[in-house]
């Protein structure tokens, strides 16, 4: 699938086929994509635990369910739990930055050297950063970028994916994660039981409300020609419509199939 179509087809899937297993290689591809994501100072805060639902005990599965995500967790055959390993920066002490210097990703042309990393970047920037109460915010953003690449790769592999936030304390206990890992979100993975369109692309605020040029208040102009081009590339697709009879019929059928309340 072309990249733009992958972006266009992604939906948060909430009806997974509970009985259709996901191939391990597809999960690996999602993780491989995450591993290649952009990451500040090449620290690699991301950590993930893949959990195959049917390998969990009944008690574990029950504890993972939250009021909002219980059904999704039950339906999805695979759960990928993501964490931010806050300890990594002080463990590697700039060594991965020096790897970037060695491979020419960071070069003297831009002021980089091993000495700069050892004398300034780690002791004066990175180490103090880890002591700042706001430290988890930017590092979590980088894990989010990795998760996004995993999500899109899942879509490219024909899977349904959806993000949920589970109880962090439960995740840490069930999966025995190190204390310094912060639990983030979980990607639920499975084959969609609903159509891949799932009613259409979700409502979004107008482009001009989100993006600006030069300064806040001056919207970045949206060129209709570009919009048409992206429609042709299937990145911008049919939007979901309120009270769409086709979608209502689909949800009713799913509710009947799985015995869900309406």
């Amino acid at each position, binding site marked *: 699938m072309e990249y733009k179509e992958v972006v266009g087809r992604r939906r948060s899937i909430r009806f997974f086929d509970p009985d259709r297993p996901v191939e391990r290689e597809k999960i690996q591809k999602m993780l491989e994509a995450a591993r290649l994501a952009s990451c500040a100072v090449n620290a690699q805060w991301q950590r993930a635990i893949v959990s195959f639902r049917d390998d969990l005990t009944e008690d574990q599965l029950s504890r993972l*369910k939250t*009021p*909002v995500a219980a*059904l999704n967790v*039950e339906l999805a055959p695979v759960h990928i739990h993501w964490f931010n390993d806050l300890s990594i920066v002080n463990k590697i002490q700039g060594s991965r930055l020096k790897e970037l210097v060695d491979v020419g990703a960071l070069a003297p042309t831009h002021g980089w050297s091993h000495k700069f990393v050892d004398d300034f970047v780690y002791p004066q920037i990175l180490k103090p950063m880890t002591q700042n109460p706001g430290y988890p915010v930017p590092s979590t953003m980088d894990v989010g970028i990795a998760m996004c690449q995993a999500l899109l790769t899942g879509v490219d592999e024909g899977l349904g994916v959806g993000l949920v936030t589970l109880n962090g304390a439960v995740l840490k206990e069930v999966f025995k994660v190190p204390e310094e890992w912060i639990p983030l979100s979980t990607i639920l993975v499975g084959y969609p039981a609903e159509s891949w369109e799932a009613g259409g692309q979700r409502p979004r605020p107008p482009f001009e409300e989100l993006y600006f040029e030069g300064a806040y208040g001056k919207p970045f102009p949206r060129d209709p020609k570009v919009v048409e081009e992206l429609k042709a590339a299937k990145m911008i697709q049919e939007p979901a419509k309120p009270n769409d009879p086709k979608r209502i019929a689909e949800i*009713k059928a799913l509710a009947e199939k*799985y*015995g869900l*309340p*309406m």
Partner: protein
Amino acid sequence: MTIDAAEEQPVALRPMLDYASVRTWLDGLRQHWGGDPATDDPERLPVLEAFCRYANRDPDQIIKETTMIKDGDKRIRIKGRNKYAALIDGWQAGVEGSRIRKAKWGNTVRSFLIHNGVLLQSGVQT
């Protein structure tokens, strides 16, 4: 789960449509799914009434026990929701008939709570 206050007198129920929470439920069903929820499923209101007798509460009392107003905002009472989730599960298990019928009855009551703003998930019932 046992019902609190087992010594209570049996609840005196008025016609289901007299209760504001039941009207809210039917309005929600109508808005979301269309049709006429008061008549399109003849079992809907009797099922809720049967559950009310089992729980010994009227519909408005059930919503009152599962929600509250805190700092001016409506909130879900976690304990109340858990209590009713368990009550529905227990009641559903005792419904006579097939698994589909049991699920339908349980889900009818869950739907009543859901359309009154009390998020409740039951899991797959088939």
